[in-house]
């Protein structure tokens, strides 16, 4: 597992039925591109977050494939429709096999 990987997610706590809400996600990660060399001239191997998925109560909101051109600490902002109370589940997949998750509840009034 890469060092200091930490997901951050901002989801509103409440929404009205079928409201479209804004979600922001950021995961602290080096996103080593595989294009850089170290001091001895050796290529530093690629090590990135290569996929992020967002689901609400098991249904897909967004499935994103990331390439090395995504900046350090990948930041993504998008919108989701909220049909009912429930849980957003965020999953990030690391090149090294690690999987990071975050869950956020939202209440539909």
């Amino acid at each position, binding site marked *: 597992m890469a060092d200091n990987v930490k997901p951050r997610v901002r989801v509103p706590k409440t929404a009205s039925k079928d409201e*479209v*809400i*804004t979600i922001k996600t950021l995961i602290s990660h080096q996103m080593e*591109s*595989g*294009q*850089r*060399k170290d001091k001895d001239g050796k*290529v530093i191997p690629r090590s990135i977050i290569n996929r992020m998925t*967002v*689901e*609400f109560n098991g*249904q*897909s*909101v*967004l*499935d*994103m*494939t*990331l*390439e*090395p*051109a*995504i*900046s*350090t600490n*990948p*930041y*993504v*902002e*998008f*919108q*989701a*429709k*909220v*049909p009912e109370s429930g849980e957003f589940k965020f999953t990030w997949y690391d090149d090294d096999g690690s999987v990071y998750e975050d869950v956020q509840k939202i209440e539909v009034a």
Partner: protein
Amino acid sequence: MNSRRRTMLVAGAAGIALAGLPLRVLAQAAAPAAQPEMTADQWVAEFAGGAEVTDGDGVTLTAPEIAENGNTVPISVDAPGATEILLVASGNPVPGVAKFTFGPLAGNQAVSTRVRLAKTQDVMAIAKFTDGKVVRAKSNVKVTIGGCGG
């Protein structure tokens, strides 16, 4: 003594120029890839899956005209009704940037993220729609090279 000092000055100048480059050695020293990287056109063709790619309405790409630093360039794309969007940086060593697949609970088909651009280049967003259409938007981003490596 004199010529040695001049040589050092040149080396120093090169050092400063390098330090200012986004992704540092990226352009000159791309890794000896195990397999040749796909070109930007190949990324687009693979995504389109045989469909004709048209430049036109339906996709809005928002990118700065000039990026203060190529390491973190904010990019937004909006393609109402699209099922998938591919972002491509034609001048990067790996031109593919990201692919977004929207699910049934997507609030719309718009996303913002931050990308690395190795040099001044065209950024493209290609969107696939349910009727089979594939539409492309382009935006040129000038990447400046900073003065102070810090």
